[in-house]
């Protein structure tokens, strides 16, 4: 078995990162000019990394599938970003943010990484304010905070309901400044199709120009993958339509290990599914749980009447309502972590207490908050979210409770990286949601933005130098090398194959079917039988896809169907790996709930003795089973406990 070295620096937790930086190798300014870095992705992680590399003097090439860096999926993040500033003086600290994150992740993340994340969180807020990010402020002119699930302090910074937008625009502005300066070259509407590995090191990528179909080769001394998460494997998710797992999957097939692929976050507060034409699900920010109360009818007969449209939620009196989160988890109430809230909603709906016409919804009610604070306060806090809800559902949430249901939202799993964010392929790094690093088996709200920017602004700019320091004598690479040739050939063959099948079913038809398999068997509740079945079903569906999909047009044109087909082909394989990982992990932890492993009260039951490790999957060939490598997780500084939000 390959030995996985996470390269966690020695020393006390609080000194690890300082020690690392004090002893790492650096690249001097004149050598930086001779080194090229490719960054794939312009979301928070990619844009912040590319801008920072450019500022430092490296030659940077940045790639994205969108027309502009500003449209990366990070733009859609609503609620906020965490930091351990303790501005509200409510007892927060770096240690507490670290602790909450490890605990929230159900003790399946690395202490060293998470501590560093908490440590640099404060720098992020400073950086963004200096860039002109208009965070919410109080009347005294200082920054305002709100609270998010899984925490008992208020440490979330926000910019109305558009925090991701404002942070991304900040990173985009820094990137634009470097593009103007000439240190960063931008290649948009380009999709990475292959990684080029030369003598065991990452040296370039193959991309498709999404306008002309041209296949391009790009070389560099190091490659950073920051292409986001793979939640769209479920077809319906809160992710943007073009979000994909393809770049991550391509590097996996070139030798990078894939960490914890089954760890998926199902977000409790999304607008429920309503029709089979539906293309995506809409998130209602977790911040709503600050003031909204979640409930379902206490009596089944009321739930049934509601489902049939014979009773309105406002007609159900207080004593006939079950505020099940407040009942089950009095200490955290409506602010329990996402995995707990999602499962509790599913439990109520499965038991027949769900609302809405499908019975697959619960109420998120603002009546009390409006009474307590006044409508204007609620409007100021959540106005845009309420408006969004009303547009979609055609109901006014000021007057009747919102209906919500869990939906796929985020993937904690991703490309395996060590402390330096380097993958198992030297010279290949992964950042943001694309890596598996910091959230264990469940991510806390407002921590993805923090991690993306931490990786890009404050971690990679250091750690990549430790790699590049011994690359200064390596000349620039010619893209005529056979390795580029081969990678391009593989990409072209895949495209030609897809275009030549000319079957009867559309890409979306197949994607919907894959999504259903994933949701039913690799979703919120998983069990052995279902997972085994899912693996078989995915294999069959994949075979059918390659025989019967219809991709119209040609390569040399704008061809969105071809783009979708290429992404789906990868999801068809990734989905299977997710099921395998879930099958192997015979415990429940965080978002991974194995129905066979639960406490009497229905809480997730971990098996620390056998599963305190990261599963790092290794590709061994298309028709071979992937190999599992284990990175043991060692907890030196905190005591591993059962999570308790009661």
């Amino acid at each position, binding site marked *: 078995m390959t030995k996985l070295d996470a390269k966690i620096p020695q020393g006390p937790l609080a000194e690890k990162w300082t020690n690392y930086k004090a002893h790492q190798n650096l690249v001097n300014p004149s050598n930086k000019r001779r080194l090229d870095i490719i960054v794939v992705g312009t979301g928070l992680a990619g844009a912040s990394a590319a801008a920072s590399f450019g500022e430092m003097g490296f030659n940077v090439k940045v790639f994205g599938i969108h027309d502009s860096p500003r449209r990366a999926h990070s733009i859609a993040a609503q609620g906020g970003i965490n930091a351990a500033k303790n501005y509200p003086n409510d007892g927060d600290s770096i240690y507490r943010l670290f602790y909450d994150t490890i605990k929230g992740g159900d003790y399946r993340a690395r202490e060293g990484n998470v501590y560093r994340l908490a440590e640099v969180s404060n720098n992020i807020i400073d950086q963004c304010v200096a860039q002109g990010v208009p965070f919410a402020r109080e009347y005294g002119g200082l920054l305002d905070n709100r609270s998010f699930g899984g925490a008992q302090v208020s440490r979330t910074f926000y910019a109305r309901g558009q925090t991701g937008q404002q942070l991304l625009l900040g990173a985009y502005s820094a990137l634009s400044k470097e593009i103007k300066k000439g240190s960063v070259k931008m290649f948009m509407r380009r999709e990475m199709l292959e990684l080029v590995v030369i003598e065991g090191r990452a040296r370039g990528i193959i991309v498709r120009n999404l306008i002309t179909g041209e296949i391009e080769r790009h070389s560099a001394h190091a490659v950073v993958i920051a292409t986001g998460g793979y939640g769209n494997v479920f077809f319906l998710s809160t992710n943007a339509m*073009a979000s994909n797992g393809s770049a991550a999957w391509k590097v996996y097939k070139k030798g990078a290990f894939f960490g914890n692929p089954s760890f998926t976050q199902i977000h409790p507060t999304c607008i429920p599914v309503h029709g089979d034409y539906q293309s995506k699900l809409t998130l209602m920010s977790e911040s709503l749980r600050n003031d909204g109360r979640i409930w379902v009818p206490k009596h089944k007969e009321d739930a049934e009447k509601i489902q049939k449209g014979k009773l309105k939620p406002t007609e159900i009196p207080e004593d006939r309502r079950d505020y099940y989160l407040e009942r089950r988890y009095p200490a955290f109430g409506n602010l329990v972590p996402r995995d707990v809230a999602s499962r509790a909603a599913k439990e109520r709906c499965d038991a027949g207490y769900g609302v809405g016409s499908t019975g697959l919804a619960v109420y998120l009610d603002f009546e009390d908050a409006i009474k307590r604070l006044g409508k204007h306060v609620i409007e100021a806090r959540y106005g845009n979210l309420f408006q969004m809800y009303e547009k979609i559902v055609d109901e006014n949430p000021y007057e009747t409770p919102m209906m919500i249901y869990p939906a796929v939202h985020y993937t904690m799993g991703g490309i395996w990286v060590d402390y330096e964010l380097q993958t198992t392929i030297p010279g290949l790094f992964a950042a943001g949601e694309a890596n598996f690093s910091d959230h264990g088996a469940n991510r806390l709200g407002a921590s993805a933005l923090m991690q993306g920017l931490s990786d890009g602004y404050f971690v990679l700019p250091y750690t990549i130098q430790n790699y590049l320091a011994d690359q200064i004598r390596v000349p620039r690479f010619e893209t005529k090398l056979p390795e580029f040739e081969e990678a391009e050939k593989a990409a072209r063959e895949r495209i030609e194959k897809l275009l030549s099948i000319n079957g009867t079913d559309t890409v979306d038809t197949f994607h919907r079917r894959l999504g259903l398999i994933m949701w039913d068997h690799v979703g919120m509740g998983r069990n052995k039988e279902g997972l085994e079945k899912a693996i078989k079903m995915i294999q069959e569906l994949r075979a059918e896809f390659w025989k019967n999909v219809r991709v119209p047009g040609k390569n040399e044109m704008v061809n969105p169907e071809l783009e979708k087909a290429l992404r789906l082909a990868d999801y068809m394989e990734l989905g299977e790996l997710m099921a395998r990982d879930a099958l192997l992990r015979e415990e429940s932890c965080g978002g991974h709930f194995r129905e066979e492993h639960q406490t009497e009260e229905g809480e997730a039951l971990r098996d620390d003795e056998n599963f305190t490790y990261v599963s790092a999957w290794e590709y061994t060939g298309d028709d071979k089973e992937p190999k599992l490598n284990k990175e043991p997780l060692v907890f030196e500084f905190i005591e591993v406990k059962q999570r308790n939000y009661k």
Partner: protein
Amino acid sequence: MDLTLKIWRQATASEKGKFVEYQVQNISADASFLEMLDVLNEELVRKGEDPVAFDHDCREGICGACSLYINGRPHGPDKGITTCQMHMRRFKDGETIVIEPWRAKPFPVIKDLMVDRTAFDEIIQAGGYVSINTGGVPDANAIPIPKRDADTAMDAAACIGCGACVAACKNASAMLFVAAKVSQFAVLPQGKIEARERVQNMVAKMDELGFGNCTNTYACEAECPKEISVSHIARMNREYLSAKLVSQKE
């Protein structure tokens, strides 16, 4: 619902385009506008025809990718929303809907309903940032900012860069887009330091890229899905004038 769609089809930037009529049937009133187009595209693919290309991604009104000119208005008939946020209940059964791309010289058509908006990136590159590097910045609370100013900055910063303002303007002016960025930075202490250079460089770039002049018809504000106010244009004009004056004096 059954609908007739008149859609602008154009194979590439250099080819001539034309309207083509399509029928779609059994569309749910709860479907979004783009989901209705998905249904059409699935049908076209099944029939072996070329599906309609359009830009989209988040489908919740924030990425700024979607950009359809519907029945003569950018983002369709409703105020304050993007195309992707519009639902079919907004239309009547049997209605004919005309769908075009943004039409403005600086936004050339790529294919069908997709246009090239990289001109906006170029304007931002001309000065839409604060020139600081990563690290070495003061504590976030070191400079208090009046809530009023922070709120104004946020109002301006809410721009999603979709280009509806340009598409709505008879002169294809990008004033509202540029003003939103200039204004965001002009009211924040962090942005004030480079305010003079910024406004001049961004305006010069906008002119260079072929965007037209502002003749105060305010169609931009009326059609902006984020309802960004033209008061930002007034602020930008003040900034621009005073920047000019100061540079002349120097």
